[in-house]
C-alpha cells in the first residue's frame, strides 16, 4: 500500500510539473532537436561586417534560467530544423506590461524609430541567460545592473552621438557614496541606476513624467531616506517645493546627483567648508532673495565673521549655515520652531558656546555694517577711518613743517657762526 501511494504521489508531482510548463511541443524532445546543431560549441555564423557570432546554446546554463523549463520554440516560434535567419523574438507576447511601459520610455521610442543603439529587452536582461532579478547571477540583479547600464552609458561613441551625460558623470557615480556602497560593500540597499531612473519606463529628467524630474526628486530619494524626507516635507524648502515653487531646492540641489558623496568628503557640496557656497548658490541670487523677501548679504556677512574666516581656513568645527539654521528641516527664523528664532538663539549658540545665554543673544548675528543695521560697529568704523586718515594727513603736514623748521634753524646757526 505504501509503495502504491508513493508511486501515485510521484505521478501526480510529474503531472503538476508538466502542466506548469508552457504549452507547446514537449520540451525535452524539441530541445534535443535544436541542440543537435546548437549544442555544438563551434557553431557560428559570419557577420556582414566581418567577425563571427557564436550560435552555441549552453543547455545546462539555459536550464537554470527563468525560462529554462520552456522550449526554444516558445520564443523562436518559427524555428524548424534546419532553418535560416529567424524572426525577431517578441518578449511582449508574454510580458505585455513591460512592453507597454518600455514603448513609452526613451529607449522604447528610439527603438520604434528604428534606432538599434538603444537598449532593447535583451540589452539589459540578456537572451538565453535571463534570470530573475532576485537571482545574484542575473544581469538585472541589484548589484549587477549598474554595470549593465554603464556598458552603453560609459561608451563615449554613444554618449557623443546622442548628447548623453559624459563619462565623467558615470565615473562620478562609481565614486559616489552609492557607487562605493555597491562596489566596496555590495550593499543591497544602495541606489543603483534603476532605483532612481526607473527601468522599463525610463525617461530623461527634464520630462515631467520622468522619475528623476525635479518635482519627483524628494519622493524618489525618500524611498530609501524616508526619515529625512519627513523632515524635508516640513521645512520651508519642502513646503515650497510641494506648493509648486520650482526654485525651492530639492535633495539634488544641495547634495548633487551622480556625484553624491558622504558629508565628510571635502568634495561634497554639503561638506562643512562648502556649505556656505552651496546655500549661497540660491541665497545670494538677487532675484531669489527679492522674490521671496529673504534677508540679503548673508554670505558676505558670514564670511566676514570669525566663523566664516575660521571655516575658510579649514577649521571645520566652526559654525556654518547649517550649524545654526539646520538643514533638512530648515525653517524661516519667524517660525517658533526654528533654531534661529530669537527665542531659540541662546540654545542654538549654546551648542558650542555654553555661556551664551539670553543676554548674549542681543544683537544681529549676521552683522551688516550699515548705519541702519549695526549703528555701533558702523560708527566705530567711521570714527576710526576718519581719525586714522586725519592723523596720517596731520603727520605728513607735521613732517613737512618740521623739515622746513629744521632747515631754518640750521640757516640761523650758520649765520650766527659767521657773525
Amino acid at each position: 500500500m505504501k509503495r502504491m501511494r508513493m508511486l501515485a504521489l510521484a505521478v501526480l508531482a510529474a503531472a503538476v510539473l508538466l502542466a506548469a510548463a508552457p504549452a507547446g511541443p514537449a520540451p525535452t524532445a524539441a530541445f534535443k532537436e535544436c541542440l543537435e546543431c546548437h549544442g555544438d560549441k563551434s557553431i557560428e555564423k559570419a557577420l556582414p561586417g566581418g567577425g563571427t557570432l557564436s550560435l552555441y546554446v549552453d543547455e545546462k546554463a539555459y536550464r537554470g534560467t527563468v525560462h529554462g523549463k520552456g522550449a526554444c520554440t516558445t520564443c523562436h516560434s518559427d524555428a524548424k530544423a534546419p532553418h535560416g535567419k529567424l524572426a525577431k523574438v517578441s518578449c511582449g507576447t508574454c510580458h505585455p506590461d513591460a512592453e507597454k511601459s518600455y514603448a513609452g520610455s526613451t529607449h522604447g521610442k528610439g527603438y520604434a524609430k528604428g534606432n538599434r543603439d538603444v537598449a532593447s529587452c535583451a540589452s539589459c536582461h540578456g537572451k538565453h541567460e535571463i534570470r530573475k532579478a532576485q537571482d545574484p547571477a542575473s544581469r538585472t540583479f541589484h548589484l549587477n545592473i549598474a554595470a549593465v547600464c554603464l556598458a552603453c552609458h560609459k561608451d563615449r561613441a554613444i554618449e557623443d552621438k546622442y548628447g548623453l551625460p559624459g563619462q565623467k558623470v558615470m565615473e562620478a557615480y562609481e565614486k559616489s557614496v552609492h557607487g562605493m556602497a555597491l562596489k566596496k560593500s555590495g550593499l543591497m540597499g544602495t541606489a543603483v541606476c534603476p532605483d532612481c531612473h526607473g527601468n522599463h519606463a525610463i525617461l530623461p529628467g527634464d520630462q515631467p513624467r520622468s522619475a528623476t524630474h525635479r518635482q519627483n526628486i524628494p519622493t524618489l530619494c525618500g524611498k530609501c531616506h524616508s526619515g529625512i524626507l519627513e523632515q524635508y516635507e516640513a521645512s520651508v524648502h519642502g513646503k515650497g517645493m510641494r506648493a509648486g515653487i520650482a526654485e525651492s531646492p530639492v535633495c539634488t540641489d544641495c547634495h548633487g546627483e551622480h556625484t553624491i558623496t558622504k558629508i565628510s568628503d571635502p568634495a561634497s557640496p554639503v561638506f562643512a567648508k562648502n556649505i556656505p557656497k552651496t546655500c549661497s548658490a540660491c541665497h545670494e541670487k538677487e532675484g531669489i532673495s527679492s522674490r521671496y523677501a529673504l534677508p540679503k548679504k548673508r554670505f558676505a556677512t558670514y564670511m566676514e565673521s570669525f566663523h566664516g574666516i575660521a571655516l575658510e581656513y579649514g577649521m571645520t568645527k566652526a559654525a556654518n549655515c547649517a550649524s545654526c539654521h539646520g538643514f533638512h528641516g530648515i525653517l524661516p527664523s519667524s517660525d517658533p520652531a526654528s533654531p534661529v528664532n530669537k527665542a531659540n538663539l541662546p540654545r542654538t549658540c549654546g551648542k558650542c558656546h555654553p555661556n551664551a545665554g539670553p543676554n548674549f543673544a542681543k544683537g544681529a548675528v549676521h552683522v551688516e555694517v550699515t548705519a541702519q543695521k549695526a549703528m555701533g560697529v558702523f560708527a566705530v568704523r567711521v570714527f576710526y577711518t576718519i581719525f586714522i586718515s586725519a592723523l596720517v594727513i596731520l603727520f605728513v603736514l607735521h613732517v613737512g613743517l618740521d623739515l622746513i623748521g629744521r632747515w631754518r634753524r640750521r640757516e640761523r646757526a650758520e649765520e650766527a657762526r659767521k657773525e
Partner: protein
Amino acid sequence: MSAESPKSAQVVRMSLMYRVQHLLLMVTLLVLALTGFTLMYHENWLGRTLIRLEGGVLFRGFIHRAAAVLLMAQLVYHAFYMLFSREGKREMRDVLLRRQDFDDFLQAIRYNLGLAGEYPRFGKYGYKEKFQYWGATSGVFLISVTGVILWVETFSMKFLPKFVLDLTLIIHGYQGLLLFVILLFWHVYNEHLHPSVFPMNMAWLTGKVEVEWLRQEHPLEYEKLKQEGII
C-alpha cells in the same frame, strides 16, 4: 651732528632696562601686527599668504596670543617700574604731559611756519616723544583690554551681548591699525628719517647719543646734565 668735533662725546639716554623693554615691545608689536592684520585683511592675497605662513588660522591665533601675553606682562611691569623704581620715577617726571608740551607744540608749528622767532627748547622728552609714548601706551592698554575680552569669549558671553563683542572686535582691529600708523609715520620719521638721526637713532641699541645732538635737539636736558656735571 657736529661736524666740528670728530671725537664727539656720548651720553646715556636709554639705560639697559629700557633698551630691553623697547626691544621686547618692538618684537611683540611686530608679531601682533603680522598675526593680527592677516586676520583683519584675510580676504586679500597677502593676508591669505601670511595666514598660511603662520601655520593656518588656528596657529596664527596661538602666536598672536602668546605675543599678547608677553606684551601685557611687559605693560604691567613697565607701569610698576615707572611708578615705583628710582629710575622709573625720574623718567616719569620727564615724560609726564605738561601744559608746557602743548605750548611747545604750538610754538614749534608757529616757528616752522615762520611766525615765531624761537624754536621751543625741549627737555629730555619733547612733545614728539611724549606724544609717541602716551599714544602707544594708551593704545596698547585699549588693545589689551579688548583683546582679553575676545580671548576669553566663552566667559565674556556670560556678561556681554553679541553686539558689544562685535564692537570690541572692531575696536581691537582699528586700534591696532591706529597704533601701526603712529609707529609707521611718527616713530619712523622721528627716529629714522629726521635729518638729525638719519638713518637711525642708535640709542635703542647702544643706549647712548652724542652730546652735540642732545645740545641741539634737547637743550634743556643738555643744560641739566651739564649742571649735574655728567657732561
